[in-house]
């Protein structure tokens, strides 16, 4: 979302940051997490897991906002996010550009 000015409370209101956890051996390569992540955090790996699928890798870990969609949409219970308590991310326009 492109904002035309910086919100007045941008310092107080910070979007959450999430840490992505992936159990690569459980993944069956369906691609749902990669496709539906609203922040395009994930990408298909070029490596294979033991079963021959390409599990996701976290391409842009700083973009993750712990929305939980990948957690909810994974049919294999292979990916989930946890909140990252210590991050210092300031809200800007666009997708995850650091201030």
């Amino acid at each position, binding site marked *: 979302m492109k904002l035309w000015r910086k919100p007045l409370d941008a310092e107080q209101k910070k979007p959450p*940051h999430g*840490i*992505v*956890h*992936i*159990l*690569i*051996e*459980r993944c*069956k*390569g*369906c*691609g*749902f997490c990669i*496709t*539906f992540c609203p922040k395009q955090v994930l990408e298909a790996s070029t490596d294979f897991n033991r079963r021959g*699928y390409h599990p996701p*890798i*976290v391409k842009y*870990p*700083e973009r*993750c906002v712990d929305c939980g*969609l990948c*957690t*909810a*949409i*994974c*049919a*294999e*219970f*292979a990916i*989930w996010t946890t909140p*990252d308590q*210590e*991050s210092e991310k300031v809200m800007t326009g666009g997708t995850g550009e650091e201030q």
Partner: protein
Amino acid sequence: MSEATVNIAGLEQHPLDDLLRVDRIPHIWCPTCGLGIVLNSFLTAVRESAIPRQDLVVVSGIGCTGRAAGYVNLDSFHTTHGRAIPFAIGLKLGNPQLKVVIISGDGDLVSIGGNHLIHAARRNMDLTVICVNNFNYAMTGGQFGPTTPQGAKLTTAPYGSFEHPFNIPFLVDSCGATYVARWTVLHVRQMTQAFKEALMHSGFSFVEVISPCPTVYGRRNQLGSGLEIVKYYKERSVVRNDIDTRECEITYQGPIVVGRFVQKQKPTYLEIMNQFLRTTVGEKFVPYQGPMEDGD
């Protein structure tokens, strides 16, 4: 900037792992099948609903969806084709404290199990039914069924199915179900919310979930990959809460009406039974005492 964590299985635990039989993961469902997502949603709803875990029982029938009972780390029963609902009724009446959930497929619940479905809805049995609708009999290789939209090609309808399918929400609504909802598998948050509402609902609650079956239904109709099918279902969905269930028909690759259609409170079977017997039998009435205890 934090690093993401990538783990080999075993070093970390998925938040729902304690509700899963992890010794049976990975499950048998195909990649891009919607059933894993339904299971995920269901277990999330279980966790969030705070129903005592020991009271929760899952009963399933035969079919791909029927395998769900084998993956939940709860008391679970994988019964015969179409008979999950009466089995569940036996469980519920045998121990009214149990919260019994039936997770089964469209063929199991609406075809061979159709009779039991309508009677359970009629009686407003305090059960929760999750019907995963993938429009065919997938486990046996893709035969058509009473939910297959007209025109779809399947192995026992090689020229296309010409039968008019059920409008399942209308069916159960007309029989007396008191909570009826439908979502597609991609509506994860709404689906989880619907499961929660259905679990907390007292009476016959029914949630239909439209799920992709790329390996069988999709392949036999050249609908593309699972990702394409599921995106298509989501795009074609129209949210219409509280709509008349007559409007919920699904045509082949047509719009899919989703939402919570029915939510009302009516006395459940057990409430009616106990009150009625108390009134008619009078002082001699002895209510059911519950299951045998360990000493009996």
